[in-house]
């Protein structure tokens, strides 16, 4: 339980902050995403960071219990898979992400999801 709380206290606020940024600063986020996707080295290095972070979470916390802790495990798996995909085929990550961010409502939708997810994990980590 202590490991779940520690990870939740780190991951929750980060996700919530990204979500708030996406909702309140959409134009800059869109421009930033286009610049990020324009350079494969950035995709590659972000893949290494995501893979290391995901593997770290899964190695200290790989529990599928029927409560909020499964969310932390799920985030670990998502980071691991996204990181591996970015490292192995950065050009496909670029292709898919470019198609996704072309959607006008993408940042609004993802921002809401991240705030909900980050807020929930932060609440469980600090308050509950």
């Amino acid at each position, binding site marked *: 339980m202590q490991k779940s709380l520690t990870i939740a206290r780190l991951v929750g606020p980060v996700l919530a902050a990204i979500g708030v940024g996406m909702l309140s600063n959409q134009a800059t986020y869109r421009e930033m995403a286009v610049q990020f996707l324009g*350079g*494969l*080295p*950035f995709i*590659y*290095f972000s893949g*290494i*960071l995501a*893979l*290391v972070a995901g*593997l*770290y979470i899964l*190695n200290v916390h790989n529990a599928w219990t029927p409560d909020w802790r499964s969310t932390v495990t799920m985030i670990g798996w998502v980071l691991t898979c996204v*990181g*591996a995909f970015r*490292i*192995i*085929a*950065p*050009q496909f990550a670029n292709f898919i992400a470019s198609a996704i961010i072309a959607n006008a409502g993408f940042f609004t939708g993802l921002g809401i999801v991240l705030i909900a997810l980050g807020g929930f994990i932060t609440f469980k980590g600090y308050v509950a």
Partner: protein
Amino acid sequence: MERSHFLAKLIGPVFIVGGLGMLFNTAVYRAMFERALHDHVLIYLTGVLALVMGLAMVAVHNDWKWHWPLIITVIGWLALIGGVVRMIAPQVIETYGLAMLGSPNFFIIDGGIAVLFGVLLSYFGYLDPPQLVHESTRRQPRVRRRK
């Protein structure tokens, strides 16, 4: 030994995935590395990350005994030294990196080595073959003697 296993579980899959990318996506990797090597800010940032990771690894794992955790110690020191060079002189990394990329087989060799060490570390980290665990680190069961 516990730390060695944990670090092997983290580093092993990263090496395997990176190595597979080098082996099966060589053209994109070559273009990507050429672009990255011309960007001194990117070299500097990767240097900061490598130095922090290297320092963390060396601080918790500096085992020079002749058994498999030695691989992790060497990786930690290489990350530390690589990070320092990247931060102090990114142009040196650019020069040497571009020279190495000039070799047509660079990604085949580098990817092969990365996959080999990744598989080794993942094997030791995740499967933990008991006969290879160093004897001195095993816990001995306590035996109570009756008086």
